[in-house]
């Protein structure tokens, strides 16, 4: 399960970087700037002489943290909303769906723009912006899957047994869509990482001095002609992370729900 392996390595690196990095990420050593990859600095140094490898490791923490919380918001609010819409048809469902259409109108970037204009850039903005955009994804997915389950006989049997709507949702609906949600979470996690990188590239996400892959790429772009390699490594880090997560999602889908395998 390459996906699992890649993701685990990544998380390990991120946790490690909290405690130790080959070089302190903030120390500026101007004479030692823009060195190509070498024995001491495996990935070379950036325009301020900081070790690129350490900064990428530290960047992993930021990337994962932002994405994790954002997907948490998305699922945390989206799933109950979707389940509610499926359980309580009629007006409640209509309101939830209109709220969904509305949030879909604001891609992560647009909402980030609005928030930044108000509160100024920062990691929190990115989290909130990506989080908001994830809510309708989970709400729509949950509602769709739950609706089809509500037609099933074993849910009807639970109603005949006298179970209430909320109890049925907890006992029958959620366990049966759990595998679908987990798979979707890994995919949304990967998308969140991409979105966070985009935001921090534009300077709307995590603010210096703490490092973020997006920002590193942004800085690298101005030095493209001098030190092209600077632009390569952060991008690779993002790609590998997202690739790992997507493979993990596919792997989980096969493991948890064979019926979905056919669609791979």
């Amino acid at each position, binding site marked *: 399960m390459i996906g699992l392996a890649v993701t685990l390595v990544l998380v390990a690196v991120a946790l490690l970087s909290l405690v130790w990095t080959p070089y302190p990420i903030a120390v500026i050593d101007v004479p030692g700037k823009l060195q190509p990859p070498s024995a001491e600095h495996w990935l070379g140094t950036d325009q301020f002489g900081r070790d690129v490898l350490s900064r990428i490791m530290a960047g992993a923490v930021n990337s994962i943290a932002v994405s994790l919380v954002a997907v948490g918001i998305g699922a945390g609010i989206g799933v109950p909303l979707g389940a509610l819409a499926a359980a309580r048809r009629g007006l409640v469902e209509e309101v939830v769906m209109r709220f969904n259409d509305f949030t879909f109108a604001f*891609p992560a*970037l647009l909402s980030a723009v609005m928030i930044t*204009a*108000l509160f100024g850039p920062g990691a929190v903005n990115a989290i909130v912006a990506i989080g908001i955009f994830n809510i309708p994804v989970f709400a729509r997915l949950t509602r769709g899957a739950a609706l089809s389950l509500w037609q099933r006989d074993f849910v009807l049997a639970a109603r005949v047994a006298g179970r209430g709507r909320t109890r049925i949702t907890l006992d029958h609906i959620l366990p049966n869509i759990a595998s679908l949600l987990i798979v979707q979470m890994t995919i949304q996690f990967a998308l969140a990482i991409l979105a966070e990188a985009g935001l921090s590239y534009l300077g709307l996400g995590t603010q210096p001095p703490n490092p973020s892959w997006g920002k590193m790429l942004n800085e690298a772009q101005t030095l493209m002609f001098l030190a092209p390699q600077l*632009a390569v490594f952060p991008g690779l880090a993002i790609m590998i992370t*997202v*690739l790992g997560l997507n*493979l993990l999602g596919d792997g989980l889908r096969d493991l948890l729900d064979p019926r979905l395998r056919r669609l791979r």
Partner: protein
Amino acid sequence: MALFVLQRLAALVVTLLVASLVVFLVMEVLPGDPAAIMLGVNAREDTLAALRAEMGLDKPALERYLIWVGGLLTGDLGRSYTYGVTVWELVGERIGLSLPLALIAIVLSTALAIPLGVLAAAKRNKAADVGVMGFTQLGIAIPNFWFAMLLILLFAVYWRVLPAGGFAGWDAGFWPALQTLLLPAVALALPQAAILARVTRSSVLETLGEDYVRTARAKGLSRRAALWRHAVRNALIPVVTIMGLQFSFLLAGTIIIENVFYLPGLGRLIFQAIAQRDLIVVKDLVILLAASVVVVNFLVDLLYAVLDPRLRGARHGL
């Protein structure tokens, strides 16, 4: 059919209204005193007062909202503070770049993704399928702005074939202007094409398993004929909905790509407006972009009904 359209239209209007309300609240009411934010804290009191008067901040919120929405509908979007020009003109100049860029990207990604998706589904688990799946896996994983930078490195820095950025402008002739849009469009199209190809593949795989494809085969149609005449037609319905959703991703992508390539489009405008804290421009652009996403999804819903007769509300069964 009319009923279907009206229902969707009602949903569209409601969504737009709510969106405009939220944007207005976030951008004008919440920040307390927009003027202070725009001019910075140490601005002199009289300039602040002048700006407030010009923006009509003295009127009650509801009235300002109605004026603003009225302006939106009639095209009078108010004057940008930093550029001293009406927002409408600002947008006018830049839309000439962002729109074609988005359209090329959509055409590129669709033209690439749908045939690849169908091919991968038809040749399931064979070389072609594995190849397409590999490409799409990468396509999704590569952030589009990084891909753009790689493209610049390759085409502009090493081979010097295409410009690294900037926009020649349509008056500099069709081909040179197009040339500058080529790299950005490819960078924009790649992730969309990857997602679309995967969705097409799984949708076609699903329809290939349907009974009516087996019926077509039993009628004597060859595998290829059954695929194209029956499976693909039905598979396109879910694919179209995904394309609707993708437009909002494309929008976000445009904002980033325009910055990578320093293209003076709507994306860059919005970014610069934030930097200069020009709330008026930011507010108008945000609602314009949001509205475009909602309208596109509305059009996709209509296309959905055209493709699938069951939704067309044709006469009830006999």
